């Protein structure tokens, strides 16, 4: 199958200017002077690499041979039948290490080698970016240290073990709320002291310039492939594309290819936790306010004094009180719509996809499935069954089985999510109708 180049740096109206601002407002670089030289060096190396055909070819070869891209664009027929529209799943869950994140770390690790640095550091929440970073470090023979909130190291012991087996050092972070945002703080503290020989493999399309644009470039193969695959397999562009948004790397990776396709609706689904009205959520764009976090101006969950508020989501990978600044710009510009999906809606969608398609999605991705079904139903009613929605299935759900066991009460004989599939489907359909439309 032929797909268009997965690596192109953008210069369109939705891209950042040379100082890293999207729409003159979002993003930028609110960082200590001590790191500015390193960020400048990284910006130059990234732009230089993206303009170098040899680097691009090398990145595409590594993705293809090692990570297994392009990932399939799969027609989920039973799900399509359920909602009355064509639902296509971009199978990033089938990549090596089981998520889209391998694209980003391979890109950044390749760049690290090119810059002649010997050590990488990374932050991780659930451990997926940490595992991907440890994997890339092993493959490229780089020293690797991963910072992880102490709360998360306890919740995700299996991923800690995976990282250690891959040769990475995992440092539990006890400061602050001992979760993802504090792991980022600690990684930045390491970087200030080690910047001459260390690269920071940032895990999402957030942070100071150039990370939001650079991570986007390394992930945009998702959308470039999906767009080409949709045209090749169905002869049309999709009517809508959908992805979950925590920091937003998988979402921006999907969205980028479609930004200039004005007929394509773009939907991001944010973690609504227990429900936005409860205050226990991580729906940053929907419920946050503009501020500066981790070096970028973006929507932030914060109190009246600008102190960061702890976020909540059943999905550790979406549990972040900020969001990538390009998403803030796409929301402000009206090009993309961001809607919260609750823990309960996401878990229902996890069960639904498992039972209709035999695919156990990551809980992160299940947020996208839950929200996108509502979009697909509406489009099906408006345009008929050929209406097409692409959902980014950003990761697989193996890592989430502990949560699923607890949520559904699995493990004992005769247990399981509501054994009556029709009931599960009806639950999902009604929740999508009533709640995801906020």
């Amino acid at each position, binding site marked *: 199958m032929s797909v268009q180049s997965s690596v192109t740096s953008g210069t369109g109206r939705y891209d950042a200017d040379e*100082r890293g601002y999207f729409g003159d407002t979002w993003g*930028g*670089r*609110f*960082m*200590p*002077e*001590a*790191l*500015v*030289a*390193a960020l400048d060096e990284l910006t130059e190396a990234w732009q230089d690499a993206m303009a170098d055909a040899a680097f691009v070819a090398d990145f595409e070869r590594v993705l293809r041979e090692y990570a297994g891209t392009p990932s399939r664009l799969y027609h989920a027929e039973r799900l399509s039948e359920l909602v009355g529209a064509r639902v296509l799943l971009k199978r990033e869950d089938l990549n090596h290490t089981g998520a889209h994140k391998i694209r980003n770390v391979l890109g950044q690790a390749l760049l690290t080698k090119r810059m002649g640095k010997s050590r990488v550091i990374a932050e991780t929440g659930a451990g997926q970016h940490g595992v991907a970073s440890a994997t890339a470090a092993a493959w490229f023979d780089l020293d690797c240290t991963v910072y992880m909130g102490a709360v998360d190291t306890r919740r995700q012991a299996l991923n800690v073990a995976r990282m250690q087996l891959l040769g990475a050092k995992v440092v539990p972070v006890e*400061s*602050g709320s001992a979760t993802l*945002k*504090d792991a980022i*703080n600690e990684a*930045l*503290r390491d970087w*200030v*002291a080690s*910047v*001459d020989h260390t690269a920071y493999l940032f895990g999402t399309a957030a942070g100071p310039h150039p990370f939001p644009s650079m991570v986007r470039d390394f992930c945009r193969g998702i959308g470039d492939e999906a767009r080409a695959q949709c045209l090749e397999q169905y002869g049309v562009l999709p009517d809508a594309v959908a992805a979950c948004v925590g920091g937003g790397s998988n979402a921006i990776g999907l969205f980028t290819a479609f930004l200039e396709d004005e007929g394509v609706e773009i939907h991001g689904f944010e973690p609504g936790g227990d429900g936005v009205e409860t205050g226990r959520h991580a729906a940053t764009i929907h419920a946050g306010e503009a*501020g*500066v*976090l*981790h*070096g970028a101006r973006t929507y*932030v969950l*914060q109190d*009246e*004094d*600008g*102190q*960061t508020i702890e976020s909540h989501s059943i999905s550790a990978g979406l549990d972040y009180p900020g969001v990538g600044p390009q998403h803030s710009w796409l929301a402000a510009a009206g090009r993309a719509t961001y809607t919260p999906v609750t823990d309960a809606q996401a878990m229902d969608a996890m069960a639904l996809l498992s039972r209709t398609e035999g695919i156990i999605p990551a809980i992160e991705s299940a947020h996208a499935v839950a929200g996108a079904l509502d979009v697909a139903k509406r489009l099906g009613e408006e345009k008929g069954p050929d209406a097409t929605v692409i959902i980014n299935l950003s990761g697989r759900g193996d890592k989430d089985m502990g949560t699923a066991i607890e949520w559904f009460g699995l493990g004992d004989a005769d247990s399981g999510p509501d054994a009556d599939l029709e009931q599960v489907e009806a639950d999902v359909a009604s929740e999508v109708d009533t709640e995801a439309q906020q």
Partner: protein
Amino acid sequence: MTSTSTAFARARSEGRAALIGYLPAGYPSVEGSIRAMRTMVEAGCDAIEIGLPYSDPVMDGPTIQAAAQAALDGGVRTADVMRVVEGVAETGVPTLVMTYWNPVERYGVERFATDLAGAGGAGLITPDITPDHGSAWIAAADEHDLDKVFLVAPSSTDARIAMTARESRGFVYAAAVMGVTGAREATSDLAGPLVGRVRAAGDVPVAVGIGVSNGDQAAEVAAFADGVIVGSAFVRCLLDHEGDEAAGLEALRSLTADLAEGVRRAG
């Protein structure tokens, strides 16, 4: 309001470096932090930096993080920080606020500058704002005649040092170790050359933050810098005597005296 430059001018006229002490507002309490900082002034600090506690302090080491987090847990608000500024500025020494950017943006940049000036504050030190991304603050500070203290680091290029020296008012803060705040055993050999590079770029005073914790280290730094900044060592005095205010203040007094003697030794 007293610009920090007056403290440097006085120190220079006495043939010595200025001693600048840092503590976060609100630790162990709002009133307690005012008493602590006034003690440092009485014992010989030439200027005071008041930390505005923030939830995500990426440039701070464990000591300052611990006190700032305790202050936040105790409920300190931005308005309380202004109260601390007022309580310290009354002593007549230049009193600056040191803060990460988001609380200022959230408070309102113009409102922050107005209230800071109204409380008698001399200006603001901004560890995560560089002049090239700080136009909003620069405009507000200029309007209210507040000091704009930006940082330089050993990794700064000469061009960036020149820009920073040009845009700073009061002094330039030379963060002379590549790393977070915290007391260190030895002073860094990166500090002298960094101060020299800032001096070559303009005539604004240069104060060095480098993990100084005693008079001997202060004397070493005072030999080449206009000011010696001490933070974590002061915070440590309070953390080590948690629950015993008299002992904490006594420790602050004795450390300040040692440091004040140190900055006078070099001359």
